[in-house]
């Protein structure tokens, strides 16, 4: 807000400040992206080149970091954890859809009485912190032999994402005009036909965005996975915690690992970019 004088001599000054603000936006974008760009570059450096001061920007590129990460160097293989994360994220997302779609239908297209109260009940569970139920869940898992079991995480991730999904789906299904549904009913269409032919085409992009956001949250989750899994059901973020106290030269490997494990989230996030705010604000912002 330094250009107070800009208002006085408008025509030329505004064009200049416009250009300046555009440049500033670019600078901010590059600055925020810099750590990620540097992480990507480092992941393709050899360990020796990765750990230099001043940094070696133009060092030779190699895939050693990735080879090291995928376990060809003799370390623990990340594949089981990647498979676990994929199973937990995909299954819980599917489960969320199965539970959230009918619920959202009963809250928007054919609403139950007091549907806003129900909607806000779902929201309130999202505000209950994870630590609130962590210990009883841990004790329950320990006593029933569910510790280190990926299906326990599937159930917990489903509960974590269900409120978000119900809210998002509600806001997407509300966009389906009631008049179209009534017209279809008058034409004699039955419920399955209405759902597949009328509701689905309009709500599908929203359903896709909801799934991507649920996938991201499940993939990222650490606290439950850290406490409730061990050797067998370890997820990708838990695998990453192995790098917290690593000694010696391992920067390229850490960067490769972080990048590979973040790749599904980056892809899903960019795919859902336009609906991301709506999901994160639980449908409050469109």
């Amino acid at each position: 807000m330094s250009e107070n004088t800009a208002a006085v001599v408008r025509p030329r000054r505004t064009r200049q400040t416009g250009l300046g603000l555009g440049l500033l936006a670019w600078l901010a974008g590059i600055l925020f992206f810099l750590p990620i760009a540097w992480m990507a570059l480092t992941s393709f450096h050899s360990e020796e080149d990765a750990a230099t001061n001043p940094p070696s920007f133009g060092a030779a590129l190699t895939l050693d970091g990735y080879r090291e990460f995928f376990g060809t160097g003799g370390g623990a293989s990340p594949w089981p954890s990647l498979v676990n994360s994929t199973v937990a994220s995909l299954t819980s997302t599917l489960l969320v859809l199965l539970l959230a779609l009918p619920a959202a239908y009963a809250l928007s297209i054919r609403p139950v009485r007091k549907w806003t109260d129900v909607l806000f009940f779902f929201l309130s569970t999202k505000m209950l912190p994870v630590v609130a139920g962590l210990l009883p869940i841990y004790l329950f898992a320990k006593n029933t032999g569910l510790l280190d079991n990926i299906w326990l995480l599937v159930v917990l991730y489903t509960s974590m994402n269900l409120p978000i999904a119900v809210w998002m789906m509600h806001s997407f299904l509300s966009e389906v005009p009631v008049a179209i549904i009534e017209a279809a009913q008058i034409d004699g269409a039955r419920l399955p036909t209405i759902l597949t032919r009328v509701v689905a085409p309009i709500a599908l992009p929203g359903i896709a965005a909801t799934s991507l956001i649920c996938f991201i949250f499940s993939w990222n989750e650490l606290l439950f996975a850290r406490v409730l899994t061990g050797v067998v059901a370890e997820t990708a973020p838990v695998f990453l915690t192995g790098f917290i106290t690593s000694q010696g030269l391992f920067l390229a490997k850490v960067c490769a690992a972080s990048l590979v494990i973040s790749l599904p989230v980056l892809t899903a996030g960019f795919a859902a970019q336009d609906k991301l705010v709506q999901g994160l604000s639980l449908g409050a912002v469109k």
Partner: protein
Amino acid sequence: MTATTTAAPTAAPTARAEKPPSDRLRAWATRAPLLPALIFMIAVTQLPFVATLVISFFDWNALYPDARRFTGLANYTEVLTDADLRHSVWTTILLTAAVVLASLVLGLGLALLLDRRFRGRGLVRTLLIAPFLVVPVAAALLWKHVLYNPEYGLLNGLLHYVGGPQPDWISNTPLLAVEAALVWQWTPFMMLILLAGLQSRDQQQIEAAKVDGANDWQIFRHLTLPHLRRYLELGALLGSIYIVQNFDAVFTITSGGLGTANLPYTVYQSFYQAHENGLASAAGVLVVIGSIVIATFALRVVSSLFREEASRS
């Protein structure tokens, strides 16, 4: 039943009062799709919390299960009087407030920059969102090892060029180090919410103000900011709800050491490492009380936005 039908003005005005039994059946048919989700949520989120509440009134160390006994509020007094635990309450407040405020201010600046038309706006938006889409543990590792490392981290590497000092970031300013990493991740979140707010402004009103000779600052101060208030509140509250629970960054960057342990980390540590079930539960209940305070405000903001949305359509 007939008295309550007036409460549902949206209901189709068909001849439904004639057959009460089928009416009730239809009401259940309407409710049925909702029940699986509702029951699932109650079972998985509400029951464990009730259990936490019960355990919090017991003196219970998992290593000595036989010595378990009811102690009333003793765990709460211990949590609130123990120096370490009280410190973690303070750390939680400090961490949450600092991260939310800083990312809100930065996010507002970025949203204002992105609200203007310029070459490559879409690409800049994508670059700015990226930090939010790095797995939290990976982001924390990136800051801890790749940026903060005193010997070969990028920050000291860049300082080297200008002949600056070579500080040990995490040891010197541990809490600030955690906060900076979180601000980097959460600024894009705030930016997205505020950008949505900016783009929902009444353009005609702004044009009218311009015609009347208002300058950019006056438009921002008297039109944009009041309109953004809701979105600022929403960003602050949602951010608080997520950051008050933060575990990943504290766990990864400092492992709760150097005075950076927040309540979620303390809860994790006191039952997972110290096996103090009763104490951990009491601390957990305190986190919930804190969240409820924030959440009450959050729910109010969300419901006001929600009503606005409903009245528009």
